[in-house]
């Protein structure tokens, strides 16, 4: 009898324990801390930011034996950002250092600035491109992150497929094909399609790549400086939509979505001849297209300079190792490290000083037929508008536009129908 009582008591206590256990929060720690003279710094990253992959973190730990860095890398930025939002809202589960993608920069600096450490005026951080820094600066001049890379754009093309189609193969002549105007790029595609002997090869991978390249060449895309949605009237967006849907309806695309299933095998099996490529995409192309296609790819200047992507690193206000985390962020984004990352994986520096370093200026890519990528992307970076207006839902709206273009490309909708659907969806997502 006493046994049943004991069991009953235990089960009641454990049941209550479960509830209490769930109710109590951890006070919002960030995972890092100091223990036995060792400092642990945790990082939340996404995609291929390169710090872990190229051994930079290991190098830092070697130079600072009392520091341990634990970095979590999420493959998909959408998943990463959703988790970050949840953690910010709950005030727990955050890392000491969190990566911020450019499409989310505005939303975070508008709604979550209190949760980030102000990095304005931090020692040795006055070397960034002014427009890069301004993207994470709040109205009262608080800086919530330091820039990692930027995404100046060029056109990556296949020399062998161009030759088959009777187009020039030299990168300067190729650049002349579409110099100054994206519509000439589409015209070149039409020529390619007429003369190409391989009828299973499309001129470009997706119309959304072209769309992105066109809109990011201007200082305003979806929002104006006051934060109002202007995509519906902005001529830049309208023109980009028109040209991208023209490419889609003229059957110039392989109907793929970048970074989605089918795109990687498309690179490996050569189902398209060009793709608009920001600097950070080179690493992906060379990895997925594989050694078999080495030297067949080349890089040519885009009709107009534009910036696609680029990230930041922010430090959380709740971190118990704020000071150490700031030092790490400053080191990771310092000119030397940015130049190193560019050499290693092609992430283009956002630091003005790094842009002048010989490692960057003279960089050539073996995989892309020895293309002088330092020069090409450096020139493109100079053409990037000095001011770039970001909006709160930039990332989401960009996704909705590429789905809108898929409607034309793969679902046989007319451009008008697709625009109406896109318009409605943006209203739902951003309204």
């Amino acid at each position: 009898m006493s046994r049943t009582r004991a069991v009953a008591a235990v089960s009641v206590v454990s049941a209550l324990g479960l509830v209490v256990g769930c109710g109590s929060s951890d006070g919002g720690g960030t995972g890092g801390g100091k223990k036995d003279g060792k400092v642990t710094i945790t990082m939340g990253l996404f995609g291929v930011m390169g710090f872990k992959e190229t051994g930079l973190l290991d190098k830092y730990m070697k130079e600072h034996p009392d520091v341990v860095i634990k970095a979590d890398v999420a493959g998909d930025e959408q998943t990463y950002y959703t988790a970050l939002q949840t953690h910010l809202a709950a005030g727990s589960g955050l890392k000491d250092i969190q990566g911020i993608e450019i499409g989310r920069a505005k939303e975070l600096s508008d709604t979550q600035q209190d949760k980030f450490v102000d990095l304005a005026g931090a020692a040795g951080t006055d070397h960034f491109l002014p427009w890069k820094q301004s993207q994470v600066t709040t109205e009262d001049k608080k800086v919530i992150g330091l820039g990692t890379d930027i995404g100046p754009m060029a056109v990556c093309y296949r020399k062998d497929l161009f030759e088959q189609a009777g187009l020039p193969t030299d990168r300067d002549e190729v650049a002349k094909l579409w110099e100054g105007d994206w519509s000439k790029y589409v015209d070149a595609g039409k020529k390619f399609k007429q003369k190409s002997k391989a009828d299973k090869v499309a001129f470009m991978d997706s119309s959304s790549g072209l769309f992105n390249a066109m809109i990011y060449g201007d200082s305003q895309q979806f929002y104006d400086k006051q934060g109002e949605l202007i995509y519906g009237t902005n001529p830049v967006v309208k023109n980009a939509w028109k040209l991208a849907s023209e490419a889609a309806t003229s059957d110039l695309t392989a109907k793929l979505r970048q970074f989605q299933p089918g795109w990687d095998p498309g690179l490996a099996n050569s189902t398209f001849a060009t793709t608009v490529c920001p600097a950070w995409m080179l690493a992906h192309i060379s990895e997925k297209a594989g050694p078999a296609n080495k030297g067949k790819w080349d890089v040519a200047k885009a009709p107009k300079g534009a910036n696609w992507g680029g990230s930041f690193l922010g430090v959380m206000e709740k971190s118990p190792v704020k000071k150490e985390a700031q030092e790490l962020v400053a080191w990771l984004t310092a000119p030397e490290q940015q130049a190193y990352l560019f050499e290693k994986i092609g992430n283009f520096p956002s630091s003005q000083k790094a842009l002048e370093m010989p490692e960057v200026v003279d960089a050539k890519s073996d995989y892309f037929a020895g293309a002088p990528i330092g020069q090409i992307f450096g020139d493109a970076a100079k053409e990037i508008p000095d001011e770039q207006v970001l909006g709160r839902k930039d990332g989401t709206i960009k996704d909705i536009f590429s789905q809108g273009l898929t409607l034309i490309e793969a679902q046989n909708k007319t451009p008008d129908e697709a625009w109406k659907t896109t318009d409605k969806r943006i209203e739902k997502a951003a309204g």
Partner: protein
Amino acid sequence: MAISTSTSPDGAPAAAPPDGTGTGAERQRRRTLLHRLDLHGAPYAFVAPFFVVFAAFSFYPLIYTSWISLHRVELSTLNVMEWVGFDNYTALWEDDRFWNALLNTITIGVLSTVPQLMMALGLAHLLNYQLRGSTFFRVAALTPYATSVGAAALVFTMLFERDFGMINWMLSLVGIDNIDFENNKWAAQTAISTIVIWRWTGYNALLYLAAMQAIPRDRYEAAAIDGASRWQQFLKVTVPGIRATIVFTIVLSTIGATQLFGEPLIFGQGPNGITGGADNQYQTLGLLLYEEGWKNYQMGRAATVAWAMFLLLIVVFAVQQVVKRVLARRA
């Protein structure tokens, strides 16, 4: 009712000890109380863990969700809530994405449930024969169920890939052109149903098999003596014999189909998975909830979808009960 040792048969209190101190009586009474608590309280204590967990993880979220659904609130600023009454519900009612998702949930549900239960029935019938290594086959039937949704969906996504997928390759051998499984509505829904069918057929087959084994052998013998063929035995003895189990699996599958989420999400991958295709061609209610909550970050609207799904399940359940009762009355 408990029989207490401290009460005499006539209900009078037990005699106090001869020395008459009274402490013994008090101790006795306390013991009686504990004893009754033990008998009456213990069962409640034993079931308490479930109900406490249920209250914390199911009931409280349910109530909280309904509260949120009456507000406009974003994920990044959960503490800022703006009261909007039933606006979210009326907006959902007028939203064609909701009706599209509802229809897709039903079509994918039917496309996956009906063949799945049919195949499970056939498979169970085969496993019910005396065969060598039957344990192996029974375990094998259950392996797909033990595979994670993610892994299964990823493999099937590769099989159904447009340019280099194995299924299109096999179709090309018989002269069928590449099918764009993702962008064609019915092809996409069929592909997703395939994943569901693959995962759940074995599970349902084992449920049927268990029920079949409870059917008395002599019924089959009697049927055989009457000259019934195998097929007739299946129809006239097996199926009526496991009717209750069939109803049970239908209820389970319906609930599963209503909540369909992982398969289409991974089938599409990236932004297209969240919206169920560029044209929402395979967006289920579960995906719509996810899109509102974790892409648009509108928690109020997501909560509204969750409640709509909950109410829908209740309606489906009620309809099933009515059908069952009508059928029973007819029989």
